[in-house]
């Protein structure tokens, strides 16, 4: 049982100060930009909510948002079940456990632009391992710089490669924390594998799966460096995800106002969806 103690605030103060310094001041700058127009030389004019209207009505924003949702949906629908399946089939004890964990965690430790560059070279049609194999051994016409579908397959595969391990590690952590007694009881009752999964393993993994889904949602929704290095948003605009479009507006065209308005809308959407996930998945625990 926790004790009521308002002085605990002092323990939290350093964290609060550091995070607020990093979060609130840039956030205020962005809010500031989103309601102003500038013609250079740091002269600003009040613009009201025009940028927000302009962004919310623009087809470009809708298209990028649609691509972003499609990407995140694909990522979650592939990585979560795949991660659980791999975790279920991993050994529970012995020499191979740490070996598996270390090898699986490796992709997560590679700097994001290196991941992008690595997959770029890996998929080059004539000199990359995957590109060569698909084009010259299997005879599939695969070139992600030309074909939007190939580009999509590549960025999704890259993300599955990069992040499925996170789901695996988390699910595995949930699985090993289940006491043997549960399995023995299920065995006596003659439960099928599916029943064991549905009524013992899945409920026990719920907490860690919540973390996994939340982290994967937030990170895939904000993904920037890897697809940018891999495809640069192309061919055409086919893989221009929301954050890539945002940077194009902010740093490519230096339209700070619209870019700021767009990033606030973006942030609000991320926050809303994360909050929905969070409340839906922790609903039962609140009582």
């Amino acid at each position, binding site marked *: *049982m*926790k*004790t*009521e103690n*308002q002085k*605990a*605030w002092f*323990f*939290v103060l*350093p*964290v609060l100060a*550091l*995070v607020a310094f*990093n*979060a609130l*001041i*840039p*956030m205020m*700058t*962005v809010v500031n930009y989103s309601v102003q127009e500038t013609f250079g030389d740091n002269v600003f004019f009040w613009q009201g909510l025009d940028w927000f209207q302009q962004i919310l009505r623009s087809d470009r924003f809708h298209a990028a948002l649609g691509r972003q949702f499609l990407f995140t949906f694909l990522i979650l629908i592939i990585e979560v079940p795949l991660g659980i*399946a*791999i975790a279920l*089939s991993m050994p529970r004890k012995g020499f191979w456990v*740490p070996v*598996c*964990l270390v090898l*699986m965690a*490796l992709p997560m*430790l*590679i*700097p*994001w*632009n290196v991941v992008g*560059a*690595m997959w770029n*070279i*890996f998929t080059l049609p*004539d*000199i*990359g*391992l*995957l590109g*060569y194999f698909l084009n010259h051994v299997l005879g599939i016409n695969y070139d992600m710089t030309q074909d939007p579908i190939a580009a999509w397959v590549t960025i999704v595969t890259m993300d599955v*490669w990069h992040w499925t391990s996170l789901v695996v*590690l988390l699910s595995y952590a949930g699985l090993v*924390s289940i006491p043997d007694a549960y399995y023995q009881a299920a065995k006596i009752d003659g439960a099928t594998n599916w029943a064991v999964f549905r009524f013992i393993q899945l409920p026990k993994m719920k907490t*860690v799966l919540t*973390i996994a889904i939340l982290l994967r949602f937030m*990170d895939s929704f*904000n993904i*920037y460096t890897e697809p940018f290095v891999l495809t640069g948003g192309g061919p055409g605009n086919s893989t221009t995800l*929301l*954050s890539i479009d945002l940077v194009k507006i*902010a740093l490519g065209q230096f339209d700070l106002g619209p870019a700021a308005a767009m990033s606030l809308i*973006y*942030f609000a959407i*991320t*926050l809303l969806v*994360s909050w929905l996930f969070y409340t839906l*998945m922790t609903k039962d625990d609140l009582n």
Partner: protein
Amino acid sequence: MQKRSIVPIVYILFLMLPIYWLVAMSFKTTNEILSGFSLFPQTFTLDNYKTIFTDPSWYWGYINSILYVSINTVISIAVALPAAYAFSRYRFLGDKQLFFWLLTNRMAPAAVFALPFFQLYSAVELFDTHLAVALAHCLFNIPLAVWILEGFMGGVPKELDETAFVDGYSFPRFFATIFIPSIKAGVGVAAFFCFMFSWVELLLAKTLTAVAAKPIAATMTKTASSAGYELGLLAAAGTLTIIPGAIVIWFVRNYIAKGFAMGRV
């Protein structure tokens, strides 16, 4: 049991293929890479690595990265320890809201916040220092560290605190000599995750540095565009970025899986 192990083996093979390709390329000359496909290096060369270890602009990239990642890990853990203790032991006004707010800091699109970050750190005259990157990475590392540490602390019975106070320990002494050693594993895991996320992040690190504190990943991008397309060199640099991560992960391997299992949601 035998049939089951096929799934992890196939998965690990899938993970290793691109990494193999990167490592194999780092031992090839750029000419060989561009001239066509070869599964193994035909003319095995160490020149790419030699360039990196002899050219200061390359190896300083690694030193810079390791410096700011270490500073960040130390700061994050130092401030997250007392905060996690507060979240784990006490109820106070707004604790739940504060916890969720901390989590939301992972959600801000870094791509656009990069510019305000640049202005902020220029204003406080920290631009192009290791400290700037280390502090900026606190934004997403501190919440994670608090989250993980709180989970581990929740596993320590409260009686430990009470007994120590009855025995006349002051709070700081109890915290440093009894409490922290009892969650050593948790500190290791939290430090690992701070290391990992700071090591792989590039956008903020690149925005906040110019010369003196430039991270290795930024050195790589620059070389790729200015010196044509030196694929061999790029591959060698990429391979070297994997090694620190691999070493750290080997040391904390037994705690990785446990790290999140105890986290609270």
